[in-house]
């Protein structure tokens, strides 16, 4: 319950996937939708409708491990750790992401209320937005 783990197999070399996952010009396309800029160990992501979020890089070991902390999921009540792991698989790459750190968050009453309200229809609506966004990602 205290982490989310997802993975995908990609038909491209590890080095190529590493670039997509870590470089600001790519992050601004698949993660944000209005660009990304890196300054030192901080990447500032920008979204057209959701403002900005800072990714504070804590591990960067090309081309296998990239990790940062951010608080965009639960604004104002703490941050979580996001770790990407890349591994060669045949001619392609297995890309795994683990987001963790919820147990250290102090979930506010207002946030709980928001979660309850979002339980029925809210997140399905957001998911629909997300699916349309992904389909619209320029390739």
């Amino acid at each position: 319950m205290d982490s989310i783990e997802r993975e995908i197999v990609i038909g491209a070399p590890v080095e190529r996937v590493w670039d997509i996952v870590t470089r600001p010009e790519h992050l601004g396309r698949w993660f944000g939708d209005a660009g990304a800029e890196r300054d030192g160990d901080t990447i500032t992501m920008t979204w057209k409708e959701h403002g900005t979020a800072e990714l504070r890089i804590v591990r960067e070991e090309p081309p296998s491990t990239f990790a940062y902390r951010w608080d965009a999921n639960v604004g104002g009540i703490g941050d979580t750790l996001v770790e990407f792991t890349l591994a060669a698989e045949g001619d392609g790459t297995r890309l795994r992401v683990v987001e963790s750190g919820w147990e250290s968050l102090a979930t506010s009453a207002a946030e709980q209320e928001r979660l309850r309200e979002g339980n029925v229809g809210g997140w399905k609506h957001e998911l629909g937005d997300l699916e349309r966004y992904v389909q619209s990602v320029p390739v």
Partner: protein
Amino acid sequence: MTEDVFTALADPTRRSILDLLATHGHGTATSLAAELPVSRPAVIKHLAVLDRAGLVAARRHGREVRFVVQPAPLQATAAWMSRLAAEWDARLAAVKALAEAAEDDGSRE
């Protein structure tokens, strides 16, 4: 809701307590201790944490106190986790699309 739901759920014994209460419908500190490798006082401490998180409620039945699962915080948390997982699936799919498209035309930006 003052105690963090995630803190309550981070402990495997507390997750087992919730599983047992959900399976049996209700339970007491004594009945739970009989099914778990921990003492009754330890179960009582875990129930207190779950109670503060809003995950269980105590109901008095005669001389015993029965605990039942309060599903709302669990459902809200599960829905929230599902949504975040779906967001990551969508992002990973977008990474795949970008990486494979770039690979197809052999170009690097």
